[in-house]
């Protein structure tokens, strides 16, 4: 956990409205665990004021600029342009100064990844699942269900395939892959692999639907959540979600940035889970759906 004053290495549009940014990030290969995130400072001015949270897509090394220097360690994030911060981000180039606070958060519990694993992602919800897939002992027993509203929202398919993970693509409008919700695919896959563990990340309606399915089938589920964050380190208490057993009389709140962003579904309250980011409707949700 450190604050790096660093630079952008590259920044490319990988699908309309979706960008993949590589950032110089010493030590992240050693430190970052699947499911963790960074608080990213878009530029060194006071606008936007707060940092933006982004999941770590992957870490890696690239050749140094000069052969007497060590290779350059980087992370990659994938982001969708939805508002003021991401709008500025899409204009960043090689060399632009940015800041990276991280790696932050709990990450996925990897003790559970032997056996069958089903990863369910909607839109940019795929981001944290990639490092998870990388760390799964037997990729051939893992599969990833990739969903989105339309073909533009389907990202990282090739990347998962390269890991030897089976991919199932579906879109709501049928413009690529199966037509329909990714949760329909999940129900089908759970028929095949009833003992699989499920890992999900995506817009809240998808997460809710996945949770219902998993609960009804008695399947273990880990979810990665998004909440509005100010600090990212547990200091502001802005990013809480309701914990299991939460009631108005006996409220229970858990910090998404420290206890999460990955939670065991059984640790959360599902009946009346008001979701902060749900209120942020400016740019629609990450998978292109209107929440």
């Amino acid at each position, binding site marked *: 956990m450190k604050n790096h004053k660093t630079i952008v290495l590259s920044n490319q549009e990988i699908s309309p409205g979706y960008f993949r940014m590589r950032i110089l990030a010493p030590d992240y290969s050693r430190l970052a665990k699947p499911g963790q995130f960074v608080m990213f400072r878009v530029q060194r001015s006071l*606008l936007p004021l707060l940092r933006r949270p982004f999941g770590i897509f992957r870490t890696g090394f690239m050749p140094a600029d000069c052969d007497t220097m060590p290779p350059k360690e980087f992370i990659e994030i994938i982001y969708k342009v939805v508002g003021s911060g991401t709008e500025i981000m899409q204009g960043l180039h090689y060399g632009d100064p940015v800041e990276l*606070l991280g790696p932050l958060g709990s990450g996925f519990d990897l003790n559970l990844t032997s056996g069958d694993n089903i990863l369910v992602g909607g839109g940019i919800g795929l981001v944290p699942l990639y490092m998870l897939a990388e760390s799964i002992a037997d990729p051939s027993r893992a599969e990833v269900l990739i969903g989105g509203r339309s073909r533009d929202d389907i990202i990282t398919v090739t990347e998962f395939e390269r890991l030897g993970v089976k991919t199932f693509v579906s879109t709501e409008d049928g413009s690529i892959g199966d037509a329909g919700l990714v949760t329909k695919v999940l129900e089908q896959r759970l028929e095949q692999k009833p003992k699989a563990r499920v890992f999900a990340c995506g817009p809240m309606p998808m997460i809710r639907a996945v949770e219902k399915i998993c609960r009804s089938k008695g399947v273990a589920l880990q979810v990665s959540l998004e909440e*509005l964050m100010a600090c990212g380190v547990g200091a*502001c*208490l802005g990013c809480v979600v309701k914990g299991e057993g939460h009631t108005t009389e006996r409220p229970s709140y858990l910090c998404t940035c420290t206890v999460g962003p990955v939670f065991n579904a059984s640790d959360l309250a599902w009946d009346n889970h008001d979701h902060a980011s749900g209120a942020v409707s*400016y740019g629609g949700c990450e998978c292109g759906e209107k929440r």
Partner: protein
Amino acid sequence: MKRKEKVIKNVNMQVEIAGITLRNPIMPASGTFGYGEEYAPYLDLNSLGAIVTKGLSLNPKAGNNTPRVCETVGGMLNAIGLQNVGIEQFIYQKMPFLEQFDTPVIVNFFGNTQDEYGEVAARLDELPGVAGLEMNISCPNVKHGGIIFGTDPQAAFAAVASVRKRTSKPLIVKLTPNVTDIQVTARAAEEAGADAISLINTLTGMAVDVKTRRPRLANTIGGLSGPAIRPIAVRLVHQVVQAVKIPVIGIGGISRAMDALEFLIVGAKAVQVGTANFVDPNAMATIITELENFCLEEGIDDINDLIGTLEV
């Protein structure tokens, strides 16, 4: 700029507030620095003037529904709802960590009633690890229909006086800016026995999501903080310095040494850094270094010589 002629090498950064000696005038603002441990990986807590905790109450408090925060131009709104672990858990779970450091710990606290304020103060009074108390009077006074203690000078006086009876530790009273005349509240706090005054707490504000037509905060109204509010904070500190004799701690939108200097020059003896910690976890360390450099450049060998030097 005759000041520049003097060439100096060391700057005394030490200031004293209500009997607490601070190695420098920079400390975090309550609620933006957790209980200290959250920022320990990023910042040497021994470099700070003091550590100020999240606001504590007698019993643990769960806080408000979400969303609790949202960004505005040059600032942010929060309606955390004073979520905290409560005084007992603080003592057993958080104090031991803080006691490792050689930095005064100031505990921010609040109550829903005058009695509750007193009880928390009495409990804190027993703790040798606590250097001072910061009393947040920006809470709704449940006995008086939710009117904020700090907006009613009489209620403020009564609450401070009753806390004063329960503790002999240095007592800092933290004022809300949402009043017509801050000097009245400041004098009430002074007369009731406060050793120092800190201000400002957040300004009440609100933002609307125009698509959903709902407030951006679950609580509808929240507190505005960050660089956007600095001019208002500087004005209020300026006014309070003129109204009271006890020392004043300036708060509001400080993110650089330049910002801290505005408050010191109008007469604050120390300052607190809030929202800027979220923007840059290292902000306070940078401010301390830059503050020292500024003094060196200006030929000031004691930061106390700078305090209250506004030329009007």
